[in-house]
């Protein structure tokens, strides 16, 4: 069907995570194609941090990520929905106790 595609394989896909500054977590910012991990890091620097947006980069092969199923959103996360006692506002504390 797609006979225009050359024999050449696409470079593998990588997910890119950037730490914007020391003390903050790495955050997913996008993806890119690169031939290997080192190449992916260099590409990530050029594509996602042209204006000092980061001090550290992680690259992860996209195939290495296991994700929860969006279809099972309700059943998968449901056990947490009825456990309101996990939240501090569930408990009534007399006003005179002050901030707790």
């Amino acid at each position, binding site marked *: *069907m797609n006979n*225009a595609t*050359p024999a*050449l394989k696409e470079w593998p896909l990588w997910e890119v995570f950037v730490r914007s500054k020391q003390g903050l977590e790495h955050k997913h910012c996008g993806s890119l194609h690169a031939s290997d991990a080192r190449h992916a890091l260099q590409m990530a620097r050029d594509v996602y941090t042209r204006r000092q947006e980061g001090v550290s980069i992680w690259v992860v092969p996209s195939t290495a990520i296991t994700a929860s199923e969006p279809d099972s959103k309700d059943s998968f996360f449901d056990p947490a929905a009825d456990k309101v006692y996990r939240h501090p506002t569930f408990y009534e504390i007399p006003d005179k106790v002050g901030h707790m």
Partner: protein
Amino acid sequence: MYTQSFSVADSEAKPGLKSVAPPPGAEEAALQTHFDAVIDADGKIEPRDWMPEAYRKTLVRQISQHAHSEIVGMLPEGNWISRAPSLKRKAILIAKVQDEGGHGLYLYSAAETLGTSRDQMLDALHAGRAKYSSIFNYPTLNWADVGVIGWLVDGAAIMNQIPLCRCSYGPYARAMIRVCKEESFHQRQGYEALLVMMQGTAEQKAMVQDAVNRYWWKCLAMFGPPDADSPNSVQGMRWGIKRISNDDLRQKFIDATVPQAEVLGVTLPDPDLKWNEARGHYDYGAIDWDEFWATVNGHGPMNKERLATRVKAHEQGAWVREAALAHAAKQQQRQQKEAA
């Protein structure tokens, strides 16, 4: 930089778009109801969520056209890197063109989350099936054109792209937020380059005016056909992909640009352009849509050359892509040998 705000049909349906077989009637209806509720609540759709096939196809077409526009958009300005009038302007132009390449990459990645591959999109572009913004099918004749592209073309792009930051499809919206943050530099550097030229010789001033004259109407057409002739817009609005109509965006652009032209000291080539007190907007003359459509359909002055340049660059880069893969495979083998 941005494609025309509407998404024109590509020449042929995209091959190989991975589509999941639709679930049986009742189940699909429930999924559709859920999807509609998310859209109505101004929520976001993420890559692995169920979505109607038409929504997916529209997004693939629009995002890939947008990505192609960024990549092809590097060509008219890239021609001027080696001819920039100073080292400062050269460094600025390199940075801008690199940004356009980056924008293309953000957008290709966003489109890939919909189940189309990078190679499929590039094939469609290189085979001439996919569209990209027609504005790049006009030549950049002198240095003032580079300034005008920054000021007017990127200015129109910003008008178009800001509402897309609120698009219902998460990856597209996130890519647009990133793009918009960078786009302001593009417009300001172009306007400033023109301001400098306007302080120069009579000949330099005339170059600026000439470039504005050639690009003004093309920029107005970038917003797409009038609302009345833009049937796809309604569906795009319904899906939260499009937020503001073509005509409204065009009006915003004109209203914002007229005062900028006055400060710059150029005129805009439209005898009908005048402030309408009652409307609170500028009135403007008729756009030549025949010329626009001719260019969209491949008959603009630079369509063939742009595509040929793009294909040549891709073909001449093939050995680099192959070598990088071969190197990665060799490194992997070496590591495995050392570990053994």
